[in-house]
């Protein structure tokens, strides 16, 4: 099996801030919805969320939508601080979270510059019959553990098993995390960064390519393509 290094590109020119990715992520990954009360206290759990910023001075302002998920950093600040190796780097470059090892120090969440980690403040619960729609491929997380975006690791594994069964290599674009699949404007692209010809590799070499908070030195594997149109020219 080829050695893969999964990465993502998000084109901010294409993102409309529709939040389909957020809904898809919730459905795919069995993420609990916390309810209005907890949400008001800032305890929402959206492994991917769309950050909205205003650019420019009134009246020449425009909204900038920036989907933020775990950046799967190569030099991830969350990993060394975890006392139990719950947060560790897997061989495919993914920043994995092993729920069973997590004891809930929440140090990783403080260390993460993107605030991309979410804590289970209570045991997750779904009103009947919503428990029937849970994805059997994704484990539920109990109270007191940290969770975050996995790049839909279950889909990666399923794709690799399928390719192996058909005795072939995984094709570029064959594996799509839920957010990428659901994006109506195809603003998100997912693939293998070790393959120089994959779409994600080619796009990440774009002149518009930037990474979020590059100055912190986390070497993220999510690349953002900055907006081309300069502001105020609509």
């Amino acid at each position, binding site marked *: 099996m080829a050695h893969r290094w999964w990465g993502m590109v998000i084109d901010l020119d294409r993102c409309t801030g529709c939040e389909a990715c957020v809904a898809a992520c919730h459905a795919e990954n069995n993420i609990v919805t916390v309810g209005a009360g*907890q949400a008001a*206290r*800032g*305890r*929402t759990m959206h492994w991917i969320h769309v*950050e*909205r*910023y205003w650019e420019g001075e009134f009246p020449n302002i425009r909204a900038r939508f*920036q989907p*933020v998920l775990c950046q799967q950093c190569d030099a991830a*600040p969350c990993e*060394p*601080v*975890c*006392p*139990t*190796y719950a947060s560790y780097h897997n061989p495919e470059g993914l920043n994995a979270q092993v729920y069973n*090892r*997590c*004891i*809930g*120090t*929440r*140090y990783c*969440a*403080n*260390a993460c*510059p*993107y*605030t991309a980690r*979410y*804590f*289970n*403040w*209570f*045991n997750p619960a779904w009103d009947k019959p919503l428990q029937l729609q849970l994805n059997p491929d994704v484990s539920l997380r109990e*109270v*007191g*553990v*940290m969770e975050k975006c996995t790049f839909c690791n279950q889909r990666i594994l399923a794709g690799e098993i399928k390719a192996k069964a058909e005795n072939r290599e995984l094709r570029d674009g064959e594996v799509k995390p839920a957010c990428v699949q659901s994006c109506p404007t195809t603003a998100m692209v997912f693939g293998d960064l070790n393959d120089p010809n994959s779409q994600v590799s080619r796009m990440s070499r774009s002149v518009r390519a930037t990474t*979020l*908070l590059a100055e*912190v*030195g*986390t070497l993220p594997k999510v690349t953002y393509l900055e907006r081309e149109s300069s502001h105020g020219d609509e």
Partner: protein
Amino acid sequence: MATNSAAQANVIDIKAEKIRKDLLLPVFHTSRRYYVLVFVLGAIGLPGMFVYAYQMYEGMGVAGITRPVFWGFYITNFVFWIGISHAGTLISAILRLCNAGWRRPVTRCAEAITVFALAIGAQYPIIHLGRSWLFFWLIPYPSERGIWPNFRSPLVWDFFAISTYLTGSLTFLLLPIIPDWAMVRDRATGVRKRIYTVLALGWRGTPREWHRLEVAMRIMAVTILPVAVSVHTIVSWDFAMAPVPMWHSTVFGPYFVAGAIFSGIAALIIAMALVRKALHLEEYLKPLHFDNLGKLLLVMSLLWIYFIFAERLTVWYGNQPAEMAAFWSIQRGRFAVLFWTMICCNFLIPFPILAIKKLRTIAGTVIASSTIVVGMWLERFLIVVPPLEHKYLPYDWGSYRPTWVEITITVGTFMGMILLYVLFVKFVPIISIWELKGGQHAKPIAEQANATVNPAAIRLDSTLPSTNS
């Protein structure tokens, strides 16, 4: 000090029989007020334990911590108590090594604070865990999980640092208690005699035993110093190692250690004043002791204001956007009131009190110490919370407000600390009797010991030199 050291060593000149009587009194006699005090402390403190159980049952969500402020009151209290723990062992070790004669009635008061504050402080990382019942996964032991703790994690360093410090300071506290327990044993009857016979570890008071005790104390005093310094440095690294604006600072190690000693001395002065009043030890804990500790506190206050100035100035001058958000929220935003209260409590109020000789009385030092303890708690809070509220991406900023759960547990541990101290005073003479006596002789203890096997008689029945300052 204007007087010479020999005069200082003899600040206490009381007949042996009286010392024994005064200092052993609380061990043998318990007033009704004592039981009431224990009951009240327990009644206020106990709900904290139930609330902790409730928090474990319901989930961490009953506390006020939230995203992005994942650490709040619990970690504040952790740092605060570990800081207080620097009262004892560190100060008493320094005073022992400097051979400061006036230290003798003070050391045990201080060392007991260390052990109890550590015991309380070490609870907090566990209380704060999402899954408290798995805290032992921090311990490196061959387990069925086949995995070591992550030695790169400052939290694992914490575990080792605190357990080392706790073991060391417990030894440092218990070693010099042995002769005093032997003295209680020889005077006690019944159950008390049996208990103290076990506690005294067969101490007979031979010259060889005295010699070994002295050597052991000297070794402990030297080794405990680097341990104490490293403990609070490592606690500071819990913050400094994370790339959080305002946390990621090289000054944190020494800044935390200075703050720890600062709050530790303040706690010691308060404890000494309370013990002095409650046990009528006016002849032992004299204004001189408060004066000397007050001077030490003055130095630490200056050092603290220097550190906070150095830390704030470099952040402000560096003017990095991510750091400035947290910086301004402390200086003139949501936390400004707490910040300026802290400056008043840690410097503006105690500095004049401690600097002016006339004000550096027992009452003066106790007032200064009280404000310092409050101020240092605020300092810990301001280190933990505001930077977490303002991390890099403004969209993810949030705010923290403690709930009744955190407040009850916090109150519970404060009461628990006082309760432990109150109980300690009942089982151990709070002033080291043999050391007090030792201080009244010019010669080292080992040389004075005579060969008789009657243990309690050795230190106390010799006549005292009557010279005094």
